[in-house]
């Protein structure tokens, strides 16, 4: 069985079928940008995109992701290290403090702006409802989502 992660296909042995995706990404692929905050699928820190859909990777078993395409925070940055406009907007808007929620926030934003390139502020606020941030009060993250939308249009 295989999972495509950030464009690259990875095989996993059948005995790992029940392992959760977040732990596999972190331990087996060393993609530690995916964070585990609650491990029960409620905080959003482990958000990745599976076939473009934001998913809580701590609650996804490898067998459920088999044959699918996963995008993690490491795949959002360009190969030459250039930031994606969403990442750049997070930096420019001061949307980062401790940074633990940031990868999940960026990926939720990534999926949201793909589906809705012209969001209102209220829609941007709702888009990150599933991602907890304990530091920022969300306001500069919402600024960043709108700033990114403008750059990406």
């Amino acid at each position, binding site marked *: 069985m295989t999972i495509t992660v950030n464009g690259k296909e990875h095989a996993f042995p059948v005995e790992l079928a029940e392992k959760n995706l977040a732990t596999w990404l972190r331990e087996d692929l060393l993609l530690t940008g995916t964070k585990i905050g*609650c491990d029960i699928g409620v905080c959003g820190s482990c958000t990745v995109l599976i076939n473009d859909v934001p998913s809580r990777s701590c609650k996804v078993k490898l067998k459920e992701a088999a044959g699918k395409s996963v995008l993690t925070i490491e795949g959002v940055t360009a190969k030459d290290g250039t930031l994606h406009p969403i990442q750049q907007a997070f930096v*420019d808007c001061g949307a980062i403090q401790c940074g*633990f929620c940031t990868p999940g926030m*960026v990926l939720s934003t990534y999926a949201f702006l793909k589906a809705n390139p012209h969001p209102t502020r209220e829609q941007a606020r709702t888009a990150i409802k599933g991602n*907890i941030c304990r530091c920022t009060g969300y306001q500069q993250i919402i600024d960043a989502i709108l700033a990114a939308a403008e750059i990406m249009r």
Partner: protein
Amino acid sequence: MNNTKNKPGWRNDAYAKVTGIAKYTDDYTMPQMLHAVPVYAPVASAMLTAIDSTQAMLQAGIVAVFTAKDIPGNIKFGQIIKDYPTLVSDRIKSTGDVLALIVANTRDNAIAAIPFVKLELEELPAIYDPEIAMLPESPLLHPEHGSNVCNYHCVRTGDIQSGEQDSDLIIEHDFSTSRVEHAYLEPESALCHLRPDGVMEVLGSMQHPFSTRRFVASTLGCKLSDVEVKTVPMGGGFGGKDDTPALVCARAALCAYLLKKPVKITYTREWSMRESYKRHPYTLQYRMGLKNSGKIQFVRVRMVADGGAYCSVTPWVTWRSTVQCCGCYEVPNVHCDVYGVYTNNVFSGAFRGFGSPQVNFCIEQLIEIAAEKLNLDATELRRLNMVHQDSVTITGQKLSTHTVSLKQAMDSILEASAYEAKLPKCSFGNPTQDEWYGIGYAISYRGMSLGAEGTDFNSAIINIQPDGSVLLETGIHENGQGSESAMILIAAEELGIPQDLFRYRFPSTSNIPDGGTTVASRGTLLGGGATVKAAEIVKQRLCEGVEAGLGQTNCHYEQGKIYNADGEELADYFEAVNFCYAKQIYPYGFGVFKAPRVSWDEHTGHGDAYFTWVYGCQAVELKVNAKTGQITLLNMLAAHDMGKIINPAMLAGQYFGGMTMGAGYGLYENVPLESGNPKVSNYHNYRVLRSTDLPEMTPIYIENRDPMSPSGAKGIGEPTLELMAPAIANALYRATGKRFSSLPLAPQVQDFVKGKQQ
């Protein structure tokens, strides 16, 4: 060269964090690394008679099970009173107590073996109510302490009897506040290994590496220099990453020491919420007297703080509550008694705000209750009593060394919120309305940094390299707030060179002297002060380099250039660096900032408690659904005087984050206990505010540079948190017509609405 203008949102770790390459503790692994997990006490009060790990050792992948008898150093440690057992040897006092550590090849294997550790216990009576704990007949949690009262503080100012006699109105009101979880997104984590040079190296998620070093060295029975604590990005702290993370590091270090292999402990959210300390729940009984004119005559208050099973920093938290027991008001007669009390509950400790949110919740409501009874305007009552330039505080401190900007903060919020114009819209529980509207605000002052609760100094090293690049470090810790960036911006401004030249050194307790903990909103104030001092020294070194190179005297440094006494430009920064290295002068500065003198008399509660103060005001508009009691926040504003703005975007982030955490404290956050054990275990049953719970927030910045601060900046982390709960309480009163005296507020509003319908 003079391009030192702050870039919006700039922080030195932003790229690493936004790309996911920033490595937090659990992101590190080492060859041969093992994993340890804690075994918790099943009850809050018992005698531990035996631990049998035979069956556990037979489980897959298990390497060792360690108990207190394996500790080579001290079993107990603590920041003030050394009463916290790293592993319990005999007496269980809390369900957060760790009795054993299971070490295995994988974390999953270690967790799977937990049920196989057999515990023999004799359960003992437990005390969960601090008032009962204080009774003389109650059994002692810490017999060696001699009392269940962990600490006591008082204030005795003026003559309380004459205050009573002079009052036209006396009001009495009891309040209670909730136990709150920090809920930092990153659970505790530590990775320790014994280096070939004999040093125990500790990586961990903590906000006080030097405190952690003390815990580790005490547990291992080694010297401080035998432990090196390195700190990596930390996923939030808010005061919570001190004792508990230090204990986690000490336990990982113990396992690594005994097994001579790297050992990692990463907590689950459930362990974190079970064991980690919380914000102190308080009960507060206030009695206040006023003249018909509105002038406050006296305040008498008794506070009891539930410290839980261990001391932690309860004496310091309750000390701030003592100093600030009357809020930001002049009160001639004060009688204040504050008790920190041991119980068998999960312990309490430092949490952003540190003893002020509890008293502000009361006093900012009391002042409005009094105004209504006197038929006076609450804003005018505040104006009449609040501290102003050269006021004397209730502890006898004259506020004369800095700008007292309380009125400025309050007026800016009243204007920005159009408060007076909106007051008539308030519903006061109007039965004809489906939705009730309310607006409210609160004001405060706050002593900055540690005050008389601790030794307060910090250092910084500026080390200019031959190519002009700069290595900077301070004794302040990056908790996520952007302290490293703030230090770089302060140094860049002082030296008049671009911030891109700076690199903040990977922090380690072996690099720089112990600068105390990064708490009490003291990072920018103390670390920034030390950075300015270090910059002054390297400026002098650069001048000496130019003087030696060019045969000049009396040079001076200004914004990246060196001038002679006639004002003639001799060299730029880079040329000066070259001269230094050519003439055997190191452009290196070790700067120290010592907090100005503070004082405190424990018997009278008098003294210059803090060397400087900040002032703030926050307001909120909200609506309440008259049928369901659901509360919707409509608008939140904050005005604070932080002295000087260092990094505008990070400052805004402190405002928004603090207001949000304050609103969560006011409305929902609560850790109910069952037999001393938290009933909340994760984010599904502990409610922190999400994006959709919040309105747009407006920050108002007030800058009155503080002469006591070398950089001019004070602090902002905690002031932003301490006002939203009372502002919400006041707004809820104007929405519902009912005063709510205990936290959190939302469940009471719902009960109130239900009660009305019956």
